[in-house]
């Protein structure tokens, strides 16, 4: 008897997400404001150690307005991916739907990856659409083109971030104090990725850790795109290469981890 494939899970979850936004119109509307709130957070955090001008200088930004817009989009998307993939198990456990979702005729490892994707993609697309008017206002049509380049990096950055999120999801399934993992991982990734401060001001150990954080390379791309009107193609390709490498590493480890988590959970029982 055949089971279902990951595409069927993706479609089901996409439908559920669309129904959810349809039935929660105000929440859908507020999603378009969140990136602007994030811009305020970035400005606030960036200015803690001095004025906004100092922050711009420290971050080495020639177009701070555009950088803030794109950094906000990157931060929102990163949060969206981790929440979408790693938070999937947690959210459904709270709702009592996890058991029924696991009863789908598909391996749990495939199920969790496919089910977490629609929300992550929707979050990225909504964020880009939301900040597009601001990008056009700041930099004209060139701003929208730059934003599309950053979107491409965000999508490329999603691949390793999904692997990282699956690792977090594996831990979530095994340990009991689930919410602590998500609550810690999101701020940590944002901190070491250089969204708030340049990586160079972080302690040495965090600078090393940041090399393994996919969001860092998306932020670097955003800085490059917002600094130069025609950024170096080779430099951008290097960043894409790093994202591809991290994608392979994290997804390979995540594949093993989720299968172990699957077995551990089934020995203990799905709640």
């Amino acid at each position, binding site marked *: 008897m055949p*089971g279902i494939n990951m595409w069927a899970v993706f479609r089901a*979850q996409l439908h559920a997400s669309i129904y959810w936004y349809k039935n929660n119109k105000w929440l859908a509307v507020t999603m378009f404001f969140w990136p602007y709130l994030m811009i305020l957070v970035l400005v606030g955090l960036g200015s803690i150690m001095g004025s906004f001008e100092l922050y711009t200088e420290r971050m080495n930004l020639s177009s701070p307005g555009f950088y803030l817009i794109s950094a906000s989009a990157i931060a929102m998307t990163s949060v969206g991916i981790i929440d979408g993939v790693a938070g999937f198990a947690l959210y459904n456990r709270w*709702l009592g*739907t996890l058991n029924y979702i*696991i009863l789908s*005729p598909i391996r749990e490892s495939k199920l969790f990856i496919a089910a977490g994707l629609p929300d992550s993609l929707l979050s990225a697309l909504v964020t880009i659409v939301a900040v597009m008017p601001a990008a056009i206002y700041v930099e004209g049509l060139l701003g929208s083109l730059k934003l599309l380049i950053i979107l491409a990096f965000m999508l490329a950055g999603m691949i390793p971030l999904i692997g990282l999120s699956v690792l977090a999801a594996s831990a979530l399934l095994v340990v009991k104090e689930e919410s602590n993992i998500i609550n810690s991982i999101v701020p940590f990734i944002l901190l070491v990725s250089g969204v708030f401060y340049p990586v160079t001001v972080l302690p040495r150990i965090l600078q090393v850790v940041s090399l393994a954080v996919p969001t860092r390379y998306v932020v670097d791309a955003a800085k490059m795109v917002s600094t130069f009107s025609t950024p170096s193609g080779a430099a951008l390709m290097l960043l894409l290469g790093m994202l591809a490498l991290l994608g392979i590493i994290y997804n390979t480890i995540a594949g093993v981890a989720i299968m172990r988590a699957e*077995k551990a959970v*089934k020995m203990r*029982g*799905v709640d």
Partner: protein
Amino acid sequence: MTDSPVTAIDAQGLVKNYLSYDRRGFLKKEKRIVKALKGVSFSVRWGEVFGLLGPNGAGKTTTVKIITTLLLPDDGKALVNGYDVVKEPIDVRRSIGVVLNVERGFFWKLTGRENLRYFGMLKGLKGRDLEERIDKVVSLVGLDKIGAVDKLYEEYSLGMKARLALARALLSDPPILVLDEPTLGLDPPAAREIRRLLIKLAKDEGKGVMITTHNMFEAEIVCDRVGIISAGKIVALGTVSELKKLVAEEIPIQVKFSGIVKERLTVLEDYLKKSVGVQKLRITEVDNGFELRILTPIGNEEKVIANAVLALTNKGLSILRAEVMEPTLEDVFIKVTS
């Protein structure tokens, strides 16, 4: 798998131990092994409703979770529709419809129909097939009659939630249904409708239906066969009439009385055991009072009923009714689990 499985569900010697930790201070924890199942064996035939009964913590939910592939057994084997729950979980999942908790398990901000679409897609249904199945199961469980299917789940009453849970279990038209307390908390008309539907699904469509319940009345009228589980073991197994024969040498006596507070019932039970001279008795709260049920050997009932009435009267309680009863499944339950 076998070509044509003889039974819908066949569980043999299921064993499950849980590791539990007892806190001993702030950081110290003590390991404890909880033996949830100690070799549970039973089968569910095609076209029958099988009831798994047992007190809280007896192992009913653990058994259901193993049968539905949500939990791995430590030992033993279970075949569902001929598929091994450990080696062929995907095939088992395609063969079953499951209700685990009628109170939750759906997305609150989606309508009943949207929820069914989602879970239907996760079972591999799509397009027109999916819509037709949704219409059919919604009509089967009566959600269409009460106009609930297009309401948000958060607006559902418990009865509606139970119907929707059953609709989801039936969505992929599985040959086997595993239902954990499917009528829990339902009002009598809704519970009756669900019971009728379960019998219809087993008798008319030949499905194998396994339910767990605390409700002895329900088990007696719905189940073809019953397994009683206690402390992780099946302690009685058979048809309801076969099980009643287990208490044939004993006859139940029922005395309805009032005039006591609930907190004093345990003391009263101990007093009655001594003064009436029987050990198998239980007091439960009923409408306008309490009910004392005593199991006593046949031939002894007149003496026991007189002693019970006297003992209750001596305590200043009002006797509302006293009678010798036919044995019920509850009497069997009390006997085999005590």
